[in-house]
C-alpha cells in the first residue's frame, strides 16, 4: 500500500514507522525537517520538507498514485484542507484527518473524509476508566 502522511509529530512519526516496518510504501511530509528525527532510525520511506496543503508538494510526494492519505498535523484546519486537496484534486481513495474540534470533525465527516476526533475518543476512554471499579484498594 502507498501511504502519504502529512505531519511528523508523535502520531505521524509513529504511524509512518509502523507502516514502513510492515513493508508499506510511505511518504511523510512536515514543514519542520527536525521533526523527521522522530522516525525510526531505519525508516526507509521518503521524508519531504514542505506544507501538506500545497499541490506541488503533494505531487512531489507521489500523491497521484497513493492508496491512502493521512493528515495529522497539530492544526485542524491544515488537516481538513490537506485531506480535501487529496480527495478532490488527486482522488486518493482513502483520506483521514485528525480533527481536535468535535464540531468540525462532524461537519467534514460526510464529505468523503474520515475524521478522527481525539477529544471525543479520549474523553470517552477516560469516562470509561472512571466507571471501571478499582482493581484493589489500599
Amino acid at each position, binding site marked *: 500500500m502507498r501511504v502519504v502522511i502529512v505531519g511528523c509529530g508523535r502520531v505521524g512519526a509513529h504511524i509512518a514507522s509502523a507502516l514502513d516496518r510492515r513493508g508499506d510504501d510511505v511518504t511523510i511530509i512536515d514543514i519542520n525537517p527536525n521533526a523527521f528525527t522522530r522516525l525510526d532510525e531505519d525508516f526507509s520511506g521518503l521524508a519531504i520538507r514542505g506544507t501538506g496543503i500545497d499541490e506541488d508538494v503533494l505531487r512531489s510526494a507521489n500523491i497521484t498514485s497513493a492508496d491512502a492519505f493521512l493528515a495529522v498535523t497539530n492544526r485542524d484546519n*491544515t488537516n481538513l484542507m490537506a485531506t480535501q486537496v487529496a480527495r478532490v484534486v488527486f482522488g486518493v481513495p482513502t483520506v483521514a484527518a485528525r480533527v481536535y474540534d468535535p464540531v468540525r470533525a462532524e461537519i467534514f465527516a460526510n464529505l468523503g473524509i474520515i475524521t478522527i476526533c481525539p477529544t471525543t475518543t479520549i474523553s470517552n476512554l477516560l469516562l470509561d476508566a472512571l466507571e471501571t471499579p478499582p482493581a484493589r484498594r489500599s
Partner: protein
Amino acid sequence: MYVIVVGGGKVGYYLAWNLVDQGFEVLVIERQPAKAEAIREHLGAVVMVGDGAEASVLEAAGAVRADVVIATTGEDEDNLIVCQVAKRRFDVERVIARVNNPKNEQLFKRLGIDATVSQTNVLLHLIEQRLIPDGLTRLLTLQHQEIEIVELKVGADSPVVGRRLSEIRLPPDCVFSAINRGEHVIIPTGQTRLEAGDDVIAVTRTERESELRRLLVGV
C-alpha cells in the same frame, strides 16, 4: 445587510472600517484579544474575540442571519475552513475568502467558496494591464474565470480594418457587445465596419483571448 469579517489583521480591519462607513452591520471576529481591543477602540463595539473556524463562535456571532462571511486571515487553510463551516453549518448565502497563495483560487472555488480575492493576482493583473500594454484590457472575469469581458484596440495593421462584422470570422465563443469610437459608442450589427483605433468591448471565453487579440490588435 449583515457582514461577518473573520480576521482582524490589516485587511480585516480596513475592510470592516469601510463596511461600517457604508452603513453595513458588521462584526469582526479576531482571535487575539489585544488586536480585538485595538479595533474596538477605533470602530466601536463591532468586534468579538474568538476563533472564527469554531462553530460555537460563529453561532454566538449570529452567523445564521449573516448575509456574507468574509475570511481575511493570513492563512489560506483557516480562510477555507471558516468559509466552509459558515456555509455548511449556518447556510450562509455568500462566503468570500482571501487567498494568500494565488494557486489556491481555483481550488477554493472547487471546494464551494463563492468568491476569492488574491492580492497577488490583483497586483499581477494590474501590472500586466498598465505596464505591459498589449492592446487588450480585461474588464471583468466571470464564471470561475472561464469567461471574460475584454476591451481591445483595433490595430492599424489588423486584417479586420475596414471590414463589416458580418465578413469577419470570429473565434468560437466570442461576441462583440460595443465599439467605442472617439466620442461615440456603437452597438454593432453585421453591417458595422471596424476602423483602426476602435475600442471593441467583447465577451470571450478565456481560452480564446489570445486568438481574438491577434485578430483585432494584429500582433
